[in-house]
């Protein structure tokens, strides 16, 4: 059995761990709220963009020579995967879910005889994937060093993807990210972004109005809308990742705090029992000593 001194030290260390985890929980909760606000603020643009794109795509539907971002390269050989994780750990299974989903996807695609390339976003998934698939990784970027994710980071990533497509480096691009369902649940999701699955046209505000005119013409419009739409989608997933990361961390730290509390209770009980046993033992020693005299 551990000595009283050891037990006291253990209790002390678990108590300070609990302080840290509960502080991290508070911080994550505050950050989560901010991230959710930002995600909500970015939604109107994404909605309007989706409507416009659907409108333009409807009017060019059936015409040939459409941009590769919309229709793909016509092949299905080289897959580009973009897993998106957080930069920092201690967020429960948040990052390992992404890592596992990505690895399964890579193995599945390779089994089908496709070439796979990976462009990880976020430090955690990069570190994980560079152990197993170092030769498949064609570059990586971190989510964001600063507190807030600027739109420019999505722009840069989008431009990188677009230029890779123009060079014919890949045929299909899939994003693996954590979809933010609520604070407790983030589901790892695979979303194909190139070729684009066309959004439903939900432009009901003027459904009965004659169709749109475009200036410049539809094709030019489409070719400038598509890269922007890609960036907006990437931005939305980045914001979702940021919100999900903090949600997952909050849940994980809440559990950790509760477990630390339980451990403290258990240790305190052992400590008191040990103390009592020691006193009893000492008393027995004294009494039997007195009897012997």
């Amino acid at each position, binding site marked *: 059995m551990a000595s009283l001194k050891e037990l006291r030290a253990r209790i002390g260390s678990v108590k300070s761990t609990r302080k840290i985890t509960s502080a991290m929980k508070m911080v994550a909760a505050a950050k989560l709220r901010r991230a959710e606000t930002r995600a909500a603020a*970015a939604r109107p*643009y994404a909605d*309007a963009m989706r*409507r416009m794109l659907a409108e333009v795509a409807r009017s060019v539907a059936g015409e040939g020579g459409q941009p590769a971002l919309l229709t793909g390269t016509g092949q299905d050989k080289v897959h580009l995967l973009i897993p998106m994780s957080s930069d920092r750990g201690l967020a429960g299974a948040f990052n390992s879910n992404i890592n596992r989903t990505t690895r399964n996807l890579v193995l599945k695609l390779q089994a089908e005889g496709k070439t796979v390339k990976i462009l990880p976003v976020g430090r955690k998934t990069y570190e994980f994937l560079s152990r197993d698939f170092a030769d498949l990784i064609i570059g990586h970027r971190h989510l964001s060093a600063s507190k807030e994710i600027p739109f420019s980071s999505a722009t840069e990533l989008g431009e990188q993807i677009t230029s890779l497509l123009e060079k014919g480096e890949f045929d299909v691009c899939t994003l693996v990210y954590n979809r933010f369902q609520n604070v407790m649940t983030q589901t790892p999701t695979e979303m194909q972004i190139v070729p684009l699955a066309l959004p439903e046209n939900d432009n009901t505000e003027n459904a009965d109005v004659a169709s*749109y005119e475009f*200036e410049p013409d539809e094709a030019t419009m489409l070719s400038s809308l598509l890269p922007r739409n890609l960036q907006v989608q990437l931005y939305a997933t980045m914001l979702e990742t940021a919100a999900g990361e903090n949600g997952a961390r909050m849940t994980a730290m809440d559990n950790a705090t509760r477990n630390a509390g339980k451990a403290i209770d258990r240790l305190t009980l052992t400590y008191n029992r040990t103390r009592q046993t020691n006193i009893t033992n000492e008393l027995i020693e004294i009494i039997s000593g007195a009897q012997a005299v």
Partner: protein
Amino acid sequence: MSIKVKIVSPEKVLFAHDADMVVMPGSEGDIAAMPEHAPLMLTLRGGVVDVYEGDVVMHRFFVAGGFADIAPTHCTILADRALKVEDVSVDDAEARLAALEKSYEEADKMNVPALDILMDKIQSARAEIEAGQSAIPAMSI
């Protein structure tokens, strides 16, 4: 009769209000959205969006390119970057313009699409400087 005007940047909704007329810098010339305008979608160049209530310019925004969706009852401007004209920083824009002009000098002159993009950015930075310089008289109107 008025139209619902919305100016949205990727990060947030910048402005949402009713107005009588909106003048925006289309890539093929300025265009004004008024109530009962035929549905039109257009791309924007860098420039200033003027929101009119009556005959008065109530709000002025600088947009660095983007798209606009004009319909009989509403007008949505999706700006790549948007800010109030009062908030435009001429110094910032000038620094950006200098950097862009430098990269234009160094760019590969055969790569026409890349040059076009650079030209658009330069135009947008010039428009921003202009907007910033005009901000003070505009406020006194």
